[in-house]
Each structure stands twice: as C-alpha cells, then as structure tokens.
C-alpha cells in the first residue's frame, strides 16, 4: 500500500499540488485521473521521488519515503517498476538487453537464469521472437509491452504507469490496460496508473482519484464515477462527444 499524506508541491511560486492525501491499495489498479496540467504527473513523480515534495509524506507500507536518504531510496526503488509514457527503453540496447538490464544491475544470476527470466516476462506480455529487435524497430504498443516486461522483471511490489495508453489506438490501449490489471492481480502488487483515458477508467479503475487544479477533488471507483454529482468530474468524464452522447 502507498499513502500520500498532505502533499504540497510548488514550481516557481505556482502551486501544482495542494494538500493531496490519498491511499493506493495493494492488489488493486489505482488510477489517478485529471485534465492535462491538473498535477497528476507531478503527483506520480512525487510518489516515486523524481520530484521532492515541499510538504507532506509518501509512505510505502509504513516506510516513510520522504525521510529516506539516497541509499535507502535506492534500495526501495528496487521494489518499484515504472512504465513511462514513451516507454523509456534504452535506445542503445535491444529488447533482450533492455529487459535484462535490472537483472544485470541488481542480481548475481547466471546468464541462463537471466535469459530464462527475460523470456518469461516477455511471454507474459505476449511478446515472442523480439529479443534481438531494437526499440526503434518496435510499434508503440510493442514498446509499451517491452517496458512493462522490464518493469516487472525484478518482481516489483509497486508498479507505476504514466499514461500507458498515450499514442495508442483504442484496441491496443485495451490490451495494455488488461495486461496491467492481470499483472496487478497475479502478483498482488500495488499499481498506480496515471491516465486521462476514460476507457481505462471504466475497464480497470478499481480505485480512482480525480485531481483538479492540483487538489484531490474526488475519490471512488469505476462504478461510482458515472453517477457522481461532482460538476468538475462530470465535465471531465463526459467531456468527449462520444461520452456526452451516451449520457444523453
């Protein structure tokens, strides 16, 4: 479980996060939603420590991340997997080397063991015979799947996904969403997904927090989100032509 307690974050005098408190539970796909510029990416980066919070705490299963020193954070981060918006695969390495990278850095496994693990996680994300391909030779969906494979290679306890569906067609987005959900339930990990895709919200949103202008505006799940009276959230949820027509 990950808890954000009273988080404030300011950039050059501009308040991006204001007193945000929320809990992300284990075994669930926890979604952070909000409009572009609402602060959801900043919240995620504060949770993983890529940004330092101005005030507040980030607690990983009763371990205060904000009080940890560099070495303690490094140790905790080995329990974290993260899927970045563009995949963030290392351009100079092929698929196999990308997925094997954390195993090379943090384990003393033999090459056979590492290869076994790499092939296992690649198969888990439905990719086979791509080991020798370079990231530039992969489609957007394949890059995301390789990035997921790399993120789960070390059996993480916490999985963060930053806009996993950006740049993907609806069908591929669905595949990625279901993969994230399956992995979350299969390994019983705490997963946090940052998205503004309503399809994702409705298909995998076990728990949803809505960030509006840097503040936590609403908490719920994929069932309750459609019946909320909250006007800002309604505007977000039914903001597209398709959803507004469905609502009518």
């Amino acid at each position: 479980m990950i808890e954000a307690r009273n988080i404030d974050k300011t950039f050059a005098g501009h308040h991006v996060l204001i007193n945000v408190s929320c809990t992300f539970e284990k075994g669930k796909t926890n979604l952070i939603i909000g409009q572009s510029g609402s602060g959801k990416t900043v919240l995620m980066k504060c949770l993983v420590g890529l940004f330092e919070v101005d005030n507040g705490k980030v607690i990983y299963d009763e371990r205060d991340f904000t009080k940890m020193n560099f070495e303690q954070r490094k140790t905790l981060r080995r329990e974290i997997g993260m899927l970045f918006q563009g995949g963030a695969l290392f351009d100079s390495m092929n698929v196999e080397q990308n997925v094997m990278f954390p195993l090379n850095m943090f384990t003393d496994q033999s090459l056979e063991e590492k290869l076994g693990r790499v092939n296992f996680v690649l198969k888990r994300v439905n990719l086979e015979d791509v080991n020798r391909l370079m990231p530039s030779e992969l489609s957007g969906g394949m890059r995301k799947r390789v990035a997921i494979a790399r993120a789960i290679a070390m059996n993480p306890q916490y999985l963060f996904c930053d806009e996993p569906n950006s740049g993907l067609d609806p069908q591929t987005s669905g595949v990625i969403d279901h993969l994230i959900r399956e992995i979350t339930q299969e390994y019983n990990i705490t997963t946090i997904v940052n998205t503004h895709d309503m399809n994702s919200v409705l298909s995998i949103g076990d728990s949803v927090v809505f960030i509006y202008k840097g503040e936590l505006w609403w908490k719920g799940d994929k069932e309750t989100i459609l019946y909320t009276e909250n006007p800002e959230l309604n505007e977000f949820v039914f903001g597209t032509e398709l959803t507004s027509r469905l609502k009518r």
Partner: protein
Amino acid sequence: MFKVFSTTGNYVMLMKRVFTPPQKRGIFWNQMLTEINNLGLESLGIVAFISMFMGAVVAIQTAYNIDSPLIPMSMVGFTVRQSVILEFSPTVISLILAGKVGSRIASEIGTMRVTEQIDALEIMGVNSANYLIFPKVVASILINPVLIVFSMWMGILGGWIAMVATGLVSTNDFVQGIRIDFEGYTIFYALTKTVFFAFIISSISGFFGYETRGGALEVGQASTNAVVFSSVIIILFNLVLTQLLLT
C-alpha cells in the same frame, strides 16, 4: 554572475555523484570499452587527417620563411616537432575533440534525459550520473593521450611528406631537425595537458547533457553549450597549465 555560481555548484554536485564506485564492475568495464571505441577509436580518422595537414602546413610555412642562409633547413623539422608536440596536438586536437566528442556526449545524455531514460534508471535505483558519465570520463582520460601521441606522429609525418613532395627540405635535414635538442619532458607536458583536457571535455559535456530539460531544441542547445564551454575552459586551462609546467 549568480548563474555562473549556480552552474558551477550544480556541476560540482553532479561530479560528486559521478565519482562514486560503480554498482557493477563488470558492467562498468564493458561500458568503458564501448566508450573507448565510441569516443576514441572513432575519432582516429579525423585526428589523422587534421594532424597530417596541419603538420604539412607548418612545415611549408616554416620552409618558405627561412630566408637567411645562416639558418639551416633542419630548423623546419625542429619547428614542426616543437609546434606539434607542445601546442598543436594537445591543444588544437583537444579543441577538435571537444567539438566531436563533446557534442556526442551532450546530445546522447540529453536525449536520454528528455525521453525519460534517465528517469527510468533512477526509478530502478541506478545512480544514473555515475552509470552514464563515469565510463565516458575514464574512457576519455585513457584514450585521449593515445590519440594525441598518434596525432603527434601524424603531424610530423605530414610535415615530412610535404617537404619531400615539394623538395624544399631533404629527408636528412628534416630528420636531423626533429632530433635537435629533444627533451622528453615536452611529451610529459603535452600528455599532462591532454589528461586535463579529456576530463574537461567529458565531464562538462556530460554535465550539460545531464542537466537538459525540455525537448529537441534543448538537446541542441545543450550540445552547443557543451562545445562552447569545454573549448573556453580548455583555452583557460591551457594558459594555466603552460605557466605551471613550463616555468
């Protein structure tokens, strides 16, 4: 003025993170060998080309400027040797490497920054500054002296070829000039400067790449800054080191 102090402070802070023991020695070793190839061996062609032509130009200019019959033609070989070893190879070639290698380092690391690859390393618990910059610094310090010695040979060879081809100076005179009053200390001086310059090029370029924020435009800007600042600091240190080592 504040920006100068703040940039210098950030550079020192980054170097503190760079100069830590590598997380995995085997990985560091492989990366360093790759960088020796990327930053050093791939520069052999340009170093050879520039050195030969510069050596040839120095030789021709010297030969044409010797008017007095009291000055022996062997002075051409002497002048080529001195100018190539003392200044041309260590400083001018380092400036050229600042352009070639510096822009490569800054754009490579800068692109990794804007495509979140550095964030990915950090999230995994890797000291990204050490992982990305340290092998480049060590590789540069090891391979640049080799490049400079190679450049010295090429410069002198270029001078000799030019003299033989134009018939201005005989091989005997040229070789005799090369051997006049040779002091091994000049090589030590040149290589000491080279090691300093190699550190300047790789660390400053790594710094500008690492500090890149934004997109493609900023990567280009980081690359330009890396070359400009490396060149300026090389010129400044050249003066300081020459004063310290030759007086």
